[in-house]
């Protein structure tokens, strides 16, 4: 809409429709060797493994209360100590990865699909439809994201399904804006004009012609948004809106234990916090590496 928004919008990546397969493979090879990418994969990968194999790796049962051993400091038996119910913090951290790594990617995929569609439509058709939708998008974006998510979750009640839906919908406007910006750039190019001259239908031009050429920004956007989705899931859990209070969840465990910091019980809070931090940082390093890929 204006220069400001374009600048402030998340990464708008120039795209190269005319690169050859060899050039692309070369770029991929560079990606795989970049230290940022590798480190990011390491950090995120640990948690993906935990999410998949959680219960097998965990040394203790994460949901077995042992009430008389509560708040035990980290020791040989419990590497991360125990929480207020006597549950092993390490096991809860390991198994807790699953909750967030199920909801966040699904939400991001939802947001990306919706956002891409809207971005394509508005970027291609322009005109009144574009203006109207963009006004609504701007209105939504005027409110801080966490507030919108918070209000929606309060209205719908927290559950895996509602979290995916709410976070997905909340991310749609931003993704739409990015995709739209990329599409705007593409729509001027020759191949689009050519398709129009061939009397191809709008949807065909959008999805078959333009879309393949904006996959770069979309992939980057997806990866960045994935990090934010994890961020939002954890924050909502911290505020009391965990998907399922009966299973281990990092944000929720922090929320129920941070008052105990005053009593000196730092371990039930520190370790889930580090888990969140490392996972998100890992994802973002991957996103950063992919973005750099296109920047060169």
């Amino acid at each position: 809409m204006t220069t400001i928004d374009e600048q402030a919008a998340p990464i708008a990546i120039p795209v190269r429709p005319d690169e050859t397969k060899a050039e692309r493979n070369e770029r991929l090879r560079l990606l795989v060797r970049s230290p940022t990418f590798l480190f990011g994969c390491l950090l995120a990968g640990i948690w993906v493994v935990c999410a998949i194999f959680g219960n097998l790796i965990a040394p203790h049962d994460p949901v077995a209360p042992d009430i008389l051993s509560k708040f035990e400091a980290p020791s040989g038996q419990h590497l991360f100590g125990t929480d207020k119910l006597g549950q092993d913090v390490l096991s809860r951290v390991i198994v807790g990865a699953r909750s967030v790594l199920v909801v966040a990617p699904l939400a991001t995929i939802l947001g990306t699909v919706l956002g891409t569609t809207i971005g394509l439509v508005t970027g291609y058709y322009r005109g009144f439809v574009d203006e109207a939708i963009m006004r609504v998008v701007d209105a939504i974006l005027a409110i801080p994201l966490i507030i919108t998510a918070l209000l929606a979750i309060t209205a719908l009640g927290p559950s895996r399904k509602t979290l995916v839906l709410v976070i997905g919908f909340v991310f749609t406007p931003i993704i739409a804006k990015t995709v739209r910006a990329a599409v705007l750039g593409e729509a001027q190019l020759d191949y689009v004009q050519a398709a129009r001259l061939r009397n191809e239908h709008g949807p065909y031009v959008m999805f078959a012609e333009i879309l393949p050429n904006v996959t770069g920004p979309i992939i980057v956007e997806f990866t960045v948004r994935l990090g934010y989705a994890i961020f939002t899931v954890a924050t909502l859990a911290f505020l009391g809106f965990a998907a399922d209070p009966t299973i281990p969840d990092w944000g929720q465990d922090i929320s129920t234990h941070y008052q105990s910091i005053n009593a000196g019980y730092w371990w039930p809070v520190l370790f889930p916090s580090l888990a969140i931090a490392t996972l998100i940082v890992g994802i973002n390093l991957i996103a950063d590496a992919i973005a750099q890929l296109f920047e060169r």
Partner: protein
Amino acid sequence: MDDTQRRVDAIRTERSELENHIIDEYAAGKITRREFVRRGTVVGMSIPLVSFLAAACGGGGESGTEATSGGTATGAAQPGGNIRVALIQPSTEPNPLIVKDEGGAGLLGSTGEFLSFSNAKLELEPRIAESWEPNEDGTEWTFKIRQGVTFHSGATLTANDVKTTFESLVDPKNASNALSALGGVLSPGNTEAPDDATVVFHLDAPNGNFPTLVSSANYNAIIIPADLDPADWGKTFDGTGPFKLESFTPKVGAKFVRYDSYWGEKANPDGFELKFYDEEGPMIVAFQGDEVDFVEHFSVSGGQALLSDPNVQVIAVGASTHRQLHMRTDKDPFTDKRVRQAIALSLDRNAMVDGLWDGKADLGNDSPFAPAYPSTDTSVPQREQNIDQAKQLLSDAGMADGFTVELQTWNGFEIPDLAQLVKQYASEIGVTVNVKIVGDDTAYYGDAVFGKSIWLDSVMGITDYGHRPVPNVFLSSVYTSKGTWNAAHFKNSQADDLIAQYIAALDLDSQRAAAKQIQELLLDETPVVIPYFYNFLSAAKPNLQGAVSAATGQFDLSKAGYTS
């Protein structure tokens, strides 16, 4: 000796039959001195009289442990000073009719006064009412109103103010929170003030515990001027208490100063200050950081720092706050009472008390008769964990292979933790409990009517109940066939009769007799498991003496002061 005896006899001829009965019980040693004092004050005997009789007729010994006095050590407190109190954020405006939470109750009680004050030992100390007594069958209670009491605004209090206050509290159009205590007990139009110093309450049915229902235990029942609209109370906080309002900032706090024309002993501090906190954590931090001197209420889970600090005065008051684990008696798998008993027997209540409450709770015996109540019959044996017996009962009921059941509740307090523990204990007898937790209490309570509420419709659920000074409401709303809070759908005509008997009983003996039978019946039928009654905790700085807490969330700082 003769002289004393003659005086005692003289006193006794003037006393009502009920009062004499109590004196008899005490003289025969059936109740302890403490209970005698409590019962005596409840039925209207003045404290000096009771003290005299207690000394003169002292037959019973001190039995049982002396509960905490509900306050800090007294003596050596310096006059003056300003006390800073941390209070949970009131959720409504300060309107005596609609206040329904602790924060609001704290506001009302800071300047307002009641007919009597229900202290930590559940005794009633006279305040605006000097004395009170029932008629023959307990359907009518007459209160003598103290003279010479003035409101902070200057007007003199008369019986008419008391009458108007209670009429507005029981008026269904006002939908006051007080109806939860007085609904079905006192109806509109039945309070009269025949003269400036007398108020007579005509009850719907005999009720031996009525004075408690109009004491500070009913925190909406502060006496306000007859011409003051309760909705405007928040502008002036007009009342008759030892402190009056200096300033009130919504959502932030309030300041109070000593009221020098108080009818009783002037308050010791120059004033006190309330600071509102949205959450418990910051309250504790503020206390540790010397920003407040007294935390009105904190929980075990949030207050670990305070409990483990030897420099903090923790005031633990026995209360009847509890959780109810209900099981639908009209739905499988809980139609057979043996199954319900099995669940109750699988729980390790001692571990729960130690683990969830750091020992600061009383064991619950699956009935609302908390150990803190004098009318509780403590001879009924306490149910203990017995896995073998539980498994046997299940197999007798034809469920030897166990079963799966869904437990629904909401995410607040320690409830998810309790659910987790129940699940674990149940698994030891072969029962799989699937816990489903909704995020919000409104989602769990729904419309609070059958058919529209997870609470009332679920096969198994956990509900939180706040403290009440007498178990009447618990009994009539939860356990009677027509009870509106009867989540277990428990319909037992014997229970209905016994409960009616208890409520109508005017003296401790008959109350206890009915209680014993109810307790035994409920242990047998077990529609509801009540694992514990946890204490009400307050915290005070070590140099703050004389601060008094009661389980209703009322606190009294009039005798408080700093030692240094």
